[in-house]
């Protein structure tokens, strides 16, 4: 009696899993297929599922519509801000994990508060300041502003990672007469590499995805890819194929990184609240 019921519930469960997967993945399928349609095919009503794919949209957006340079801008900004966040964040994380000092909890709370500050609060003041300093439309302005979310992520995840490095190693090195900096550089940092890698991937994803700062701070030369995608919507004749080709180009690298760090993405999004 029990076996068939169990089998049926297993099938039900499998079906449910399939539905969940479809729910998550279908929009991406539609994005990629639309990017391979000509404008004529994209504007067929009802939409067609089978058609002859073309790469024309990709050629056009990459080489004519300047999505290529925008992607390069995105890479420059995301890589630089990630490197800067790791460079500044790992020593700070080490200090939070290893040293005892007054105001440590306050410092922690300050770091997490940054997760709650909406970019729209900072965007206009930074717009004015960067104009004064001649930093408007430069990569540097974005790289610095992206520290507001990349630095806390690096600090949060790496602090956790440093705590898991056995303290006996430090103590042994300390007896040998090594300085704290040397212990950090030569012993703890190499052992904390998994945390550094995860937080780098997350920093990259979040900077790559950012729109509001980019939209306001980099109108032309340093424009990033998401800000570029928005401009396509401004004409009368909405070029669906081109928009989806641009979207695909933006999303694919992020999704690859997200899958690589899938076990840690939630941890990054919740700032370590969930392990």
């Amino acid at each position, binding site marked *: 009696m029990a076996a068939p019921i169990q089998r049926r519930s*297993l099938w039900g469960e499998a079906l449910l899993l399939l539905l969940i997967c479809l729910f998550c993945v279908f*929009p991406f399928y539609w994005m990629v297929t639309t990017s391979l349609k000509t404008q004529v095919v994209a504007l067929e009503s009802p939409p067609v599922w089978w058609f002859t794919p073309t790469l024309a949209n990709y050629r056009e957006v990459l080489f004519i519509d300047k999505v290529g340079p925008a992607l390069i801008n995105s890479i420059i900004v995301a890589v630089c801000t990630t490197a800067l966040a790791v460079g500044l964040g790992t020593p700070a994380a080490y200090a939070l994990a290893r040293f005892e000092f007054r105001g440590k909890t306050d410092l922690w709370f300050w770091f997490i508060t940054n997760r709650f500050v*909406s970019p*729209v609060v900072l965007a206009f003041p930074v717009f004015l300041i960067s104009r004064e300093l001649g930093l408007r439309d430069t990569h540097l302005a974005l790289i*610095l502003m992206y520290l507001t979310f990349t630095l*806390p992520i690096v600090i949060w995840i790496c602090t956790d990672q440093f705590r898991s490095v056995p303290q006996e190693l430090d103590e042994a090195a300390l007896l040998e007469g090594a300085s704290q900096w040397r212990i950090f550089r030569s012993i703890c940092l190499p052992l904390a590499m998994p945390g550094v890698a995860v937080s780098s991937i997350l920093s990259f994803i979040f900077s*790559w995805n950012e729109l509001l700062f980019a939209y306001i701070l980099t109108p032309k030369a340093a424009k990033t890819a998401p800000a570029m995608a928005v401009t396509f919507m401004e004409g009368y004749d909405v070029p669906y194929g081109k928009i989806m080709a641009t979207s695909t180009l933006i*999303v694919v690298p992020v999704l690859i990184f997200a899958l690589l760090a899938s076990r840690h993405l939630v941890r990054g999004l919740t700032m370590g609240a969930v392990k």
Partner: protein
Amino acid sequence: MSFRVPRRTIAAFLGPAVAALAIVGIVPLLYAVWKSLHYFNLTKIAQQRFVGLDNYGAVLTDPVFWQAMGRTALLFAIAVPVQIALGLLVALVLHRPGLSFWKTLTRLSLVLPMATTYAVVGLLAQVMLNQKYGVINQMLGWIGIDAINFIGDPTNAFIAVVLWDIWQWTPFVALVLLAGLSTVPPEIEEAAKLETKSNRTILRHVQLPFLIPSLVAVLILRTADTLKLFDMPFTMTRGGPGSATEFIAVLIERVGNRQFDIGMAAAQSIIMLAITIILARLYIRLFYREVR
């Protein structure tokens, strides 16, 4: 277990990060507070003057601001319960033993929506929800529902944003709750399964207490993110039609970037920030007391 080290060493390790975060995080915030006390419009620079708390008075009595706040609260009130209900269902399915390969695959696919560039999510909505060319309307047609003008009609546009928010964030909620479920000690869960056959009883009395921290995290983060929500509605509807999807961050962007009224936008954003912080504190006090 921690080391006692000289202050100089601590400062050397922490100083650069703290200084950097202060420069990019606090300086602009103080500048925003300063500008919020001025009449400051980029198109009328000459008329710039100190007005004290006038901007705050104007914002607090401005129906447009409160409508945008109300809209944001409504989005939260509809979308988040759905995300929690669906997310809990998904998490419970994934938490059950068996079919582990398929469950790993499902977990991977759940990662995709929340990592997707938020701006692209809005663009996708434009394409998929279009009245004539959209695939969603085609699918609705298969089950006998007439094509819906999602983007062009105020009520439908709001519904579309809610649905899209549910698509993007249900997987996130599911994974957070799944992490919560895995904190239930297996021996307690096993013992409970011997006591009762009802899954609901187990959920209510055994698993729920362990889920509270995850639920608090979900509520706090979804509150913060809903107040921040800009990219998706901006690329999807630009806050329209009319102001049907003008959520608070979209409104502030319009006032600052399209009406150039920086002083007013600053006052609005400071008030929004205050509301965010108050809500976050409220949640923590409300929920964590039960856990303690």
